[in-house]
Structures are given as structure tokens and as C-alpha cells.
């Protein structure tokens, strides 16, 4: 695999030359570390109420201020990283898994299977943006698990389409045809000849969809349909400050910055990976 590692080293060099991409990588690594080390990093228990200091603005005691129950906002943001990354990763995993299943079936088998799956996708894609996730969550009920499912189902059509298109374009290539002609089993063709070729695309889309998944989770939680209190979710934190916009705007504005930073990090990393892994896709 000498050629493979050379290609990888090349992509890595391209990635490191891109300043924004490196910033994205640093932000994402920072988020991961924050999520893992949350109990060590958080100065207070995220659910401990300190009613006398409720709505305290940022200061010495509470660096980012306290919320309407006197809970430390910094600690809640730190623990909120866990929710955002967990819902994001698992939902993108669901979308990726279902996308691989339906995309490969659709692209490789063609015919009736393809027609059925494609019509099904068109139906799901007819629900504008957030509406599909809202519909799923309104039927299943709120909570971390249902939110993750809703975000995963929301992202699934996009993944299926990308994978189907990649499989379609790859399966007619000469070396794939040749492999089939000499009797290589379908499974091996898919695993050895087709999947590795669109792996870079999948990595890029998964990263960019992490950004979207974090936004959708935050939006559902903001509406009160997603993660429920007292769990610390960034979207929920923004929502709870709505009644105190004039007297304590920090309750709303600060958690929003956390959402923005996380989304920005995954967007920058995704853009950087795309430019490095697949220069053709560059926009």
C-alpha cells in the first residue's frame, strides 16, 4: 500500500497548509477533550442550584455567570458538550449506516429496488429542513434518544443520495467491471473496490453533517421538543434565558456562542478535509 500512504501523506500536507482547517481541527479536538474531561473541567456541579446568586452576570465567582436557578453556566456549557457531541455522533452514525445500506442497494442493484428507494427518498426530502425532525420527534416524544433518532432520520436521505451517486459512478469503471468479469463476489467488490473510493467523500460529509446535526439538536431542544431539563443542552440553555433578555442577557447569549463555536469547528474541519481529500469537490 505504498501508493496509498503517499496519497494520504499528500492530503495531510494539503490539510496542514490550510490555516482555517487547522483551526477547525483544534476546535473539534478541544470539544472532544471537553466532553471527555467534563467532570474535571467543570468548576461546579452543572445541576447544583444556588438560588441567592440566580442570574448573576459573568464575574469572579461564576466566570460566565449563573442562570435563572443560580446554576453555573460555564459548567453547564462544559457538560452540554457531551450532549451535543453524543447526539451529533450517534445521529450521523445512524444516517451513515442507513445511507450505506439503502445507497448501496439502490446504486448497485438498480431496477425496482433503486426506483423504490429513490421514491422513498423524494418523499422524505419533501419535508423542508427541520420539519422532518419535528414530525418524528412530535410523534415519538422528546428526550435524548428520540432527538438522536429524529436527527439521524433527518440526515439519512442526504447520505443515501451521496452514496447512491458514488456507487453508480464507480460500478461502471473498468476495474470494477473487470473484477466482476473474473468472478469476484459482489461483497468483495463493494468492500475492496467501491467503498474505499468514496470513503473520502463520506468522511467529508459526515464532518459537515456533524455541524448540521448539532444545529438541529440545538433547535429541537430550543423549541422544547428535544433534550429535556434538567439535562444541560445548549439549545435548551438559550431557551431558558428568553424571559430575562433585558435583565440577564448572558443566560441566552453565552450558550449560543458555544453552539456557534462547535458548528464553526466542524464546518471548518469539513471544508478543510474536502479541500485536502478531494480537490475536485472544492468550492
Amino acid at each position, binding site marked *: 500500500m505504498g501508493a496509498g500512504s503517499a496519497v494520504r501523506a499528500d492530503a495531510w500536507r494539503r490539510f496542514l497548509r490550510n490555516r482555517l482547517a487547522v483551526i477547525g481541527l483544534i476546535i473539534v479536538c478541544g470539544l472532544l477533550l471537553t466532553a471527555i474531561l467534563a467532570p474535571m473541567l467543570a468548576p461546579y456541579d452543572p445541576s447544583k442550584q444556588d438560588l441567592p446568586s440566580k442570574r448573576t452576570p459573568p464575574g469572579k465567582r461564576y466566570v460566565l455567570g449563573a442562570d435563572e436557578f443560580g446554576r453555573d453556566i460555564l459548567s453547564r456549557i462544559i457538560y452540554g458538550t457531551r450532549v451535543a457531541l453524543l447526539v451529533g455522533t450517534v445521529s450521523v452514525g445512524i444516517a451513515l449506516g442507513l445511507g450505506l445500506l439503502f445507497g448501496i442497494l439502490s446504486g448497485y442493484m438498480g431496477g425496482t429496488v433503486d426506483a423504490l428507494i429513490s*421514491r422513498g427518498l*423524494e418523499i422524505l426530502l419533501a419535508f*423542508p429542513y427541520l420539519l422532518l425532525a419535528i414530525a418524528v420527534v412530535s410523534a415519538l416524544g422528546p428526550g435524548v434518544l428520540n432527538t438522536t433518532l429524529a436527527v439521524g432520520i433527518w440526515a439519512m436521505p442526504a447520505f443515501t443520495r451521496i452514496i447512491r451517486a458514488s456507487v453508480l459512478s464507480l460500478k461502471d469503471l473498468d476495474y470494477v467491471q473487470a473484477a466482476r468479469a473474473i468472478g469476484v463476489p459482489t461483497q468483495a467488490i463493494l468492500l475492496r473496490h467501491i467503498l474505499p473510493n468514496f470513503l473520502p467523500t463520506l468522511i467529508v460529509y459526515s464532518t459537515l453533517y456533524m*455541524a448540521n446535526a448539532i444545529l438541529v439538536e440545538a433547535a429541537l431542544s430550543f423549541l422544547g421538543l428535544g433534550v429535556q431539563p434538567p439535562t444541560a443542552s445548549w439549545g435548551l440553555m438559550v431557551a431558558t434565558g428568553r424571559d430575562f433578555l433585558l435583565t440577564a442577557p448572558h443566560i441566552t447569549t453565552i450558550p*449560543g456562542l458555544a*453552539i456557534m463555536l462547535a*458548528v464553526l469547528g466542524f464546518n471548518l474541519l469539513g471544508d478543510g478535509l474536502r479541500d485536502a481529500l478531494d480537490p475536485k469537490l472544492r*468550492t
Partner: protein
Amino acid sequence: MFLYAFRRLLLAIPVILGVTFAVMLTIELIPGDPVTLMLGEYATKESVAHVRQALGLDKPLPVRYVQYLSNLARGDLGRSIREGRPVSQELADVWPETVKLTTAALVIAVVFGVLAGVISAVWPNSFFDGVVRLLSLFGLSMPVFWTGLTLIILFSLWLQWLPVGGTGSLRHLILPAITLSLPSLAMVARMTRSSVLEVLREDYIRTARAKGVREQIVVLKHGLRNACIPIVTLLGLQVGQLLGGAVLTETVFAWPGMGRLIVRAIFARDYILLQGAILVFALAFVVINLIVDLSYAAFDPRVSRQ
């Protein structure tokens, strides 16, 4: 062209039927008995049975689907559980507000997005280009509901220039429309920049310049016009984004549209109203995509010949 339009219309029919079926099916997903959930635990057995019968939930699924479709064809979306009013009427009351908001946001996104994108593409790597690219990154990363609340804090509470929420005058529209437009504006600016950059590298642009066509004409007539197809495709998708984002924007600004109605219906467990609203949203999106597809044919004669 007509054949293409006809075929495209024909293809939309199964999607519309499927969307209707999917929306009807959401009530099946609800864990437990939807009627008891809707009426609350103190509902009498008679009223539960009555509502179940009125909704046709006592009948098998295919029968219900046909019933639902035939009601739909007559514009009957059922009655809302809470208010008892026809859902179609409730939706008709709030729909214009959502159209107003999303149209305003779309106009802002297109005008400023295309403008910023074209200027960026004409002077790539300039200071302006850098600012546009940085701002569009932020535009894509800011959650709509947070942008809205931050703008309220800045322009309504501190500066007191604009109203906090509600509807009525053009001044009420400014903050919600800007809030809703920002992510789309960022996308449009990015897409315009990259497609105009690509087009400006083409041979026919060099030819036009070589024969002495003025630069403005080269950029606007040859450049922008040929960069239109990807931009129009994106706009079709962005309308979906805007309709979805309207749910958030309307909630933040107390804007009395479809989005707020959906959230209200969910919390009131008014599944009939919710179904109707989601169905109308989805059908509107299908129709808009249809229009976008047909407009390709107008922009690019090659499309209809395929």
C-alpha cells in the same frame, strides 16, 4: 419544453401521494393511544370513542388513507381538537404571515448573497473577499434562534430601534426577516462566488474580453448568467431551509405564522392541526421544487431536451 413540464408534473404525483401517506402515518408512530393523549386522561370513554370514530381511527389503514385523500381533495383537513375549527381555516389564517416572512428573507438572501458573491469572485483574495468568506462561515454556524434573540437584545431592548416581536408594520418584519435570511445569505454568497469564479475561467470569457467587451458586461452578462443554474438549484433547497427556519424565527419573534402554529399544535397535542400544517409545508415545498426544475428549462434549453 411542454413535454418536459408535463413529465415533471407527472413525476410529482407519486411524491405528493407518498408525502400524504407519510404525514397520515405519523399518528401511527405515537406511542400509546393518540386519542387519549389528545383528549387528556380525564376524557370520558364516550368522547374518546367519538373522536376515534370521527378521525376514522377505528378503520383499517388503507380505508383511512383513501378517506383522507378524498377529504383532502375537497380541501378538508379535519377539525382542530382544541379550537374545533376546520384546520384548513386555521392554516389559511396564518399562512400569509409565513409567506411574507420567508419571501422577505429569500429576497434579502438573494440580493445581498449574489452581490457579495459576484464582488468576491471578481476580486478573489481581496480584503472584501476575505470579509465575505469569513462572515459567510459565521452565517452558516450561527443558530437562527440565537441570532434572533441576540438581535432583539441589541436592536429592540438596548437601542430600542425596532419592535421586540409581533406583526403589523414593515418595522416588525425587519429583524425576523434578517434573522431568517442569514444562513441562506451565507450559502448564496458562497455558491455565487464559486460558480462565478469557475465561469470566469472559461474560454468564452477570455474571448469576450479579448474582443474588447466591457468588463461589467463580461461579468454580468456572460459570467453571472452562466453561473445561474447552480445558484437557482441552491435557491430551491434554500426555500426548504427558510420554511424550516421559519418555525424557529416565528417562535423567537412571536410571529403569528405556520411555524408557531406547528409548535403550538405539538404542545397542545393537537395532532390533526399538526398533520395539516406539516402536510401544507411539505406540499408547498414540492410545488416550489417543481417550479425550480421548470425554471432550469427556461435558463438552459439543454435541460428540456434530455
